[in-house]
């Protein structure tokens, strides 16, 4: 995995990168993040709803309002994800290392790939319209 110009040494390059607690936070955040994002979108739990045409920002989900134009939920889904994934990351920092080390690291890259079929399915509205017109 190494390249010719990046020889391995024993030490990591910064104190944050050497921190066991940061490792627990970062890995838990990145493993849970894609799943939480898909769940917050599927269950429609945005932390905020934004109405760009009138500059209105409200907590939680707010459905169609006459004369307000389209609403945007994407910011809300991201904020929900960041909040929950951060909370899980903080909890993981408290778990003993020997238990945390049992979490398979391949989940970090496999779960985002597994989210893709769900995302495509969740956009069925667009694909149906595209097939119709």
């Amino acid at each position, binding site marked *: *995995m*190494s*390249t*010719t*110009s*990046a020889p*391995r*040494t*024993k*030490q*990591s*390059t*910064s104190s*944050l*990168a*050497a921190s066991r607690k*940061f*490792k627990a*936070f*970062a*890995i838990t*955040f*990145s*493993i849970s*993040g*894609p799943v939480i*994002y898909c769940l917050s*979108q599927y269950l429609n739990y945005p932390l905020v709803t*934004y109405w*760009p*045409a009138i500059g209105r920002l409200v907590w939680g989900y707010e459905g169609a309002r006459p004369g307000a*134009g*389209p609403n*945007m939920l*994407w910011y809300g*889904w*991201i904020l929900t*994800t*960041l909040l929950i*994934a951060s909370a899980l*990351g903080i909890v993981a920092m408290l778990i003993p290392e020997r238990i945390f080390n049992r979490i398979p*690291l*391949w989940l*970090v*890259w*496999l779960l*985002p*790939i597994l*989210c*893709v079929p769900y*995302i*495509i399915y*969740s*956009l069925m*509205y*667009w*694909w149906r*319209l*595209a097939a119709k*017109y």
Partner: protein
Amino acid sequence: MRGLISTNTFWTLWLFVHLILALGLLGALTHQAMAVALPVRKPAAGIVSRFRAVPAAGYATAVCVLYVLIFLVGSYIYPQYRIAIRIPLEAGHYYKTGGFFDFKEHVAAIGLVLLPAYWYFWKNSQNPQYDNARKGVTLVLAVAVWFLFIVGHVLNNTRGFAS
């Protein structure tokens, strides 16, 4: 700022900033992905080998900073897309284009949450325990960024600069 230039020019400039930053991220992540997927075992000779032989670990922080910056700029111009671009796209029955933009926004969000682990794995690239995870997450991010770039480019061709 908006008083000095037209609204169209203002948003076009931000879209341009989004594009320029994306080019930097694309280059850095492609170098890294090549370095982990096809590592060079002996001194680089040709242009392809030299492309793969970069000090990939040194890019990790820059990739994270660029990704977050692009994400913030994209988030800033997104409401303009929602009002001035998406509504005409739907009216013109460009549904596949609209669908792929929504696909892009989800991929961008998922890429964002991968950054902490990505950064950690690269900053501990001396530890062979993280080799496979680092390779996997780097390749996933590289594919995601190429996807984001291509969809953004096609969308811009449909209705972008100065629209």
